[in-house]
């Protein structure tokens, strides 16, 4: 895989959408899951979610999921690329947390 330049932080929305798609889930499920994960802090708007899903689909971080159930709702699931991007982001976040904790330690 080509070494990519640092793309900076993922948005909070994208990060939580990706976390929500370890298993296939539809749009409304993603919204509910994000609300649950953030203890109700983030109420994702359907319009915002739709835009984010389309961007993630076009980058192939997520993919439409076809299941045998005759459920009308369209589901999505993480791809390998999506998992890699999540891992990269978690490493970046850990760096932030580490440095933040060091700062707090020095304050005392």
């Amino acid at each position, binding site marked *: 895989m080509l070494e990519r330049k640092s793309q900076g932080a993922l*948005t909070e*929305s994208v990060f939580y959408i990706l976390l929500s798609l370890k298993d296939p889930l*539809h*749009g409304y499920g993603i*919204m509910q899951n994000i609300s649950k994960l953030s203890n109700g802090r983030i109420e*994702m*708007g*359907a319009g*915002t979610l739709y835009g984010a899903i389309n961007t993630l689909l076009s980058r192939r971080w997520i993919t439409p999921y076809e299941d045998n159930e005759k459920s*009308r709702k369209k589901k999505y699931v993480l791809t390998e690329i999506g998992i890699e991007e999540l891992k990269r982001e978690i490493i970046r976040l850990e760096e932030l947390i580490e440095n933040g904790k060091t700062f707090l330690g020095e304050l005392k």
Partner: protein
Amino acid sequence: MKYTYWRYFIDYEKEEKWLNSLSAKGLALVNVSLLRYTFEECEQAEYEYRLELLNNLPGNIESKIYIRFLEESHIEHISSTFRWIYLRKNKKYGSFNLFSDNKSRIDHIKRYIKLLLPLIILNLFCGIKILNDSLKFNISSIIYLGSINIVLSISLTYFAVKRIIVMKRLKKENIIHE
């Protein structure tokens, strides 16, 4: 029982507020055609209403896919005029905001300004042309027409500027917060 109101809005947030205030009183919007708003009785404050300006007309395939996505999230598509769609969500499914980050809010405002801009220019151009002609050929009867164009152009500019100010604030906020 159905109730009909005739209203004219340029500011969609005002329109949303009006629809939600009626919904709080127990009148739920069921149809919009041009300036005519039709309501039905509902439980008080049962629904929350939102308006969205789409990129395409509601009949367009991309719009249809989007509207279906909204419907899968308990959002009902009530009515449309041109590229505007009227949406509502029953409050038992939680609060209703279409946009939850600044980027998508800014995108929506940009769409709105792009809608107003040609109308502002067209009205200004027509107004100046008509006023000019009425003076040149001494036809006083069309002065009113030209004045209406100019007034419309100015008031549309006012609404566009109002949104531009909001957009600037959001962009500034975006530098610090997402």
